């Protein structure tokens, strides 16, 4: 398994820290990790992005041309990175910062209402963790235990009291309904729940073709292949 991803948004949106939590959780999962940020003047108020690579084997280039996954938190990043997702890859975005939604029809696009949900939770700061949660649902590559350990490791001790809040936000993100545009939907084909399972189950095959009738639809819930033990653990978070 190798997951090459980019997280991009404004400085201050928690882009780098989301990457750090992901990387630390990856270490807990005994994976090789690389976290490569944009640095320099662009960090100051402008756009910030970080490439995170998780792999079971030695990681080669930190410079990635085509990403398996892109998490996009503002319009500038959407303009820059929508085209950089591998065909069949995943793009998650928060519509709060994105005015022009993505249009590609050969990737799996997930709209995550992170900011909106965070405001509903009464803590807008955790919106990045909500998006992170949705990512973990779509790409279940990390277990709750390891995400929790990852949070512990990447947050300074004085912020450890915030771990439950962060986990709650991640859990909210996992439960979020979303809007999936796949090649099939854009082609106007219908999408039933079983097929959706396959579209997000990347280990099996992302690029599946649909045969049923055309339709563009909003999906209330994501169903993906779930690990029952893992789901039970998540359900225990208050």
């Amino acid at each position, binding site marked *: 398994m190798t997951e090459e991803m980019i997280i991009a948004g404004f400085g201050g949106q928690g882009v780098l820290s989301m990457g750090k939590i992901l990387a630390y959780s990856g270490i807990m999962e005994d994976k090789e990790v690389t976290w490569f940020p944009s640095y320099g003047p662009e960090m100051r108020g402008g756009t910030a992005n970080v490439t995170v690579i998780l792999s079971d084997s030695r990681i*080669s280039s930190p410079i990635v041309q085509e990403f398996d996954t892109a998490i996009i938190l503002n319009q500038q990043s959407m303009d820059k990175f929508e085209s950089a997702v591998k065909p069949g890859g995943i793009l998650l975005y928060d519509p709060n910062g994105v005015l022009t939604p993505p249009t590609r029809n050969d990737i799996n696009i997930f709209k995550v209402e992170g900011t909106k949900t965070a405001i509903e939770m009464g803590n807008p700061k955790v919106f990045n963790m909500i998006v992170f949660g949705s990512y973990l649902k779509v790409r279940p590559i990390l277990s709750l235990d390891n995400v929790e350990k990852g949070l512990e490791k990447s947050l300074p001790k004085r912020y450890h009291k915030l771990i439950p809040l962060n986990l709650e936000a991640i859990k909210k993100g996992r439960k979020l309904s979303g809007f999936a545009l796949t090649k099939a939907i854009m082609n106007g084909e219908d999408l039933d729940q079983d097929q959706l399972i396959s579209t997000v189950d990347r280990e099996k095959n992302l690029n599946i073709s649909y045969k049923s009738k055309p339709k563009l639809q909003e999906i209330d819930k994501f169903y993906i292949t779930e690990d029952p033990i893992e789901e039970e653990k998540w359900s225990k978070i208050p």
Partner: protein
Amino acid sequence: MGEIRLMKGNEVLGEAAIRCGCDGYFGYPITPQSEVMETLMQRAPWNETGMVVLQAESEVASINMVYGAAGTGKKAMTSSSSPGISLMAEGISYIAGAELPCLIINVQRGGPGLGTIQPSQADYFQAVKGGGHGDYKLIVLAPASVQEMNDFVDLAFNLAFKYRNPAMILTDGALGQMMEKVELADQKPRWTDEEIKKISGDWATTGKPTSRKKNVITSLEMDSNVMEAKNRRFQEKYKLIEKQETRYELIQCDDAEYILVAFGTSARVCQKSVEIARAKGLKVGLLRPITLFPFPNAVIKELAHKAKGFLSVEMSAGQMIEDIKLAVYEAGSNARVNYFGRMGGIIPTPGEVVDALENKFYGS
């Protein structure tokens, strides 16, 4: 197994210095390596191991503090980025002339001049061909991962003391700013005064007892005959280092028709390029020099008889290619040697390297 952490390359350099029992760090901040001193200051090793961490008033001052500390047989180091290393050039030459072991870290950025703060490898010549004045060589190590950033600090000190020669870790802003999983070494105690006397007592200024002659540390010698003899001895030492300390890594070179040669960040990029090229059915391998001085001439000579060509992949305008050409020439081989690189703070992408390879060797 040592402690596992997620750390930036720069942070690891500081942490590894403490853990290998370094006695003193003297530096002046510059992007993209400021985290080295920041980490050291935050860790406050003077409380734990007694290591001195000092922010000097300039790079010139830092390298001369290293000169002084190294003269006492202590493990002394500094770090900077390209323009700062240029400022240190005089001091480095003096240290090499006085044959003092120490560690200098260059986290390179794009030049010339103030250039950019983005990563570069354009200080290759400066690191391996001198940089300062006079006929001297540094032992130059080029890490390609955060783990190697950790491992090479201790290795550099070991080599420096083994040969009484300054060692350099030549890395770049990308590796400095990148975080990876790293297994840290256990804390080694600093050398005691007795140990220093045992290891370096025959040259270090450790306080003269009546039982021995005065140890004098200087690079100055007014008698040209003596100076020439000293130079000859240096050259012998550099030859011995070439013979004993050359390090490199070969990736899929056994059946390779064409070989990429790259170090540090470019080597990481090239690893991916090899994967892409192999998937296209191109027989491509990678030679990654780990020591830049001594340069892995011998292995290039060997490969030059098997492979059809070499591509030097650099984040500079064609520097390392000169050393590759020299080795191929010495081998009497007709293998072609080409260059591909980016400059000014741009890192080549794996795809670009494969395109260059195809254009230059496969004629597509």
